[in-house]
């Protein structure tokens, strides 16, 4: 338990495409340890219809420079307002929130991201690499133009792509990729984040093939600290809060 509220200074705000932007944020005080798949709750000031904070996963952490990076999709008024923030502005975060992906046992791990779900996979790979594990990525996008930070991901492992229109990598979504469709899948553990239909299909595949699979969910949320009970996910143990019991769940626990 080391959650805190903190003002960060915006180091940069880079537009990556029409829908995505990348924020680098500098903390005044030393950052606490942040685990893969943990998230922050960002306060959005100056957007009249944005009352609550926005939960956003941690994309990258640099402990030497005391910075956190957020890869954000413009999904509505709140994130649109956030996309206009400038270098030097202050941004208030509640963090670090949620549980985390479990540690791998070996290198046979696959990190799967679909669309915005690629965001937590960069830090996850970096974190695992610090413990000597080298992951494989499978990242799914709409088309070649939508691909985010390919050079950065390539630093931490082999990257395979799917695009819906076939303009880069294999055609279709991540479930269609040959990595997941050979008779003998050589992964022992799959970590995934993305749209729920993708996670569900991937989870079913993993259960069928007897592969451990952990998914990071993004249910609608208010407080982020387990008080409001709004973000609940149905599990075999009843309703669980995605903000504190998750965002990571083993797919075997989920009722969906």
């Amino acid at each position: 338990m080391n959650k805190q509220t903190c003002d960060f200074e915006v180091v940069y705000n880079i537009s990556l495409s029409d829908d995505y932007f990348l924020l680098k944020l500098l903390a005044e005080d030393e950052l606490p340890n942040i685990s893969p798949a943990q998230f922050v709750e960002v306060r959005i000031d100056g957007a009249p219809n944005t009352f609550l904070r926005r939960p956003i996963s941690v994309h990258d952490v640099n402990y030497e420079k005391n910075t956190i990076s957020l890869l954000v999709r413009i999904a509505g008024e709140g994130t649109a307002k956030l996309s206009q923030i400038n270098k030097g502005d202050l941004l208030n975060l509640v963090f670090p929130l949620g549980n985390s992906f479990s540690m791998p046992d070996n290198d046979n791990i696959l990190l799967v991201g679909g669309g915005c779900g690629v965001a937590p996979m960069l830090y996850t790979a970096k974190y695992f690499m610090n413990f000597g594990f080298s992951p494989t990525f499978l990242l799914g996008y709409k088309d070649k133009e939508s691909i985010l930070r390919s050079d950065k991901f390539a630093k931490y492992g082999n990257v395979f792509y799917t695009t819906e229109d076939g303009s880069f990598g294999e055609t279709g979504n991540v479930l269609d990729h040959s990595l997941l469709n050979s008779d003998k899948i050589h992964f022992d553990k799959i970590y995934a984040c993305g749209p729920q239909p993708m996670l569900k299909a991937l989870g079913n595949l993993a259960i069928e093939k007897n592969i451990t699979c952990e998914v990071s969910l993004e249910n609608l949320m208010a407080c982020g600290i387990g008080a409001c009970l709004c973000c609940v996910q149905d599990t075999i143990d009843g309703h669980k809060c995605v903000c504190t019991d998750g965002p990571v769940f083993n797919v075997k626990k989920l009722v969906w």
Partner: protein
Amino acid sequence: MVNLNIDFNGLKLKNPVLTASGTFGYGLEFEDFVDLSRLGGFIVKGTTLLHREGNPYPRMAETAAGMLNAVGLQNKGVKVFCDDIYPKIEHLNTNIFVNVSGSTVDDYVATAEMINELTNIPAIELNISCPNVKEGGMAFGTSCASAEEVVKAVRQVYKKHLMVKLSPNVTDIVSIAQAVENQGADSVSLVNTFLGMAIDAKTRKPKLSTITGGLSGSAIKPIALRMVWQVAKAVKIPVCGLGGIMTAEDAIEFFLAGASCIQVGTANFIEPDATIKILEGIEYYCKKYGVKDINELIGSLRS
């Protein structure tokens, strides 16, 4: 030094800042952000006789200056509260109220009887105003007769401070407040959430699984304030005011309207340390305007 102590009809509060049920968990969720002993008190999550899973997801919709929720009193039941949760919070140096809800009068009575046995729980907040459960809840708080019935029955078994939380979803909140006062309530808290609704225009579907839910946040403050003002004038027991309090100035407005103490609710979701900021802001206001005792402010609206 400003005196912030309140005598809340026999219950001593070190200051008038409490938290609203369902927005502060069991207090423990906020320990990283708030020194709980600084609070006048906190009101734990709505507790029922038996375990409740609550309503299906989605349970929340953001609205202009507020939010709708349809949690539906998810809790593990009073026995788990007494056995597992109470031992973790009983040492806290503040007033802990248990918010008690039920589907039948017998449920309320049985739950209140068990809470009555807990030494370090000096009060309950009787919730006759939850808009998010099909049976009971708000139904008890929307007619004088049913409000009287449940308060009378609980009063017979509950020997400590009995605060009754009123629903704003009524024609005349004053008559309900007077009805519960007549049955022996020690105080009233108001208001619970306003019944509301949100629709996704793109999908043409309701945003909540239950279609309707309870509206809270800044949006409801003017209505809550008006109701507190009306009720405070009409009853002799003290009033605990809540509804959209986000800042110290909001809290001061409730004191002026007649509230003896206030509850911070939805603000906790946005600023986990909102209670402390509001408490410090109240003290600052008092110093700035030469108020030596917070009690001077209560009901001192000038007109």
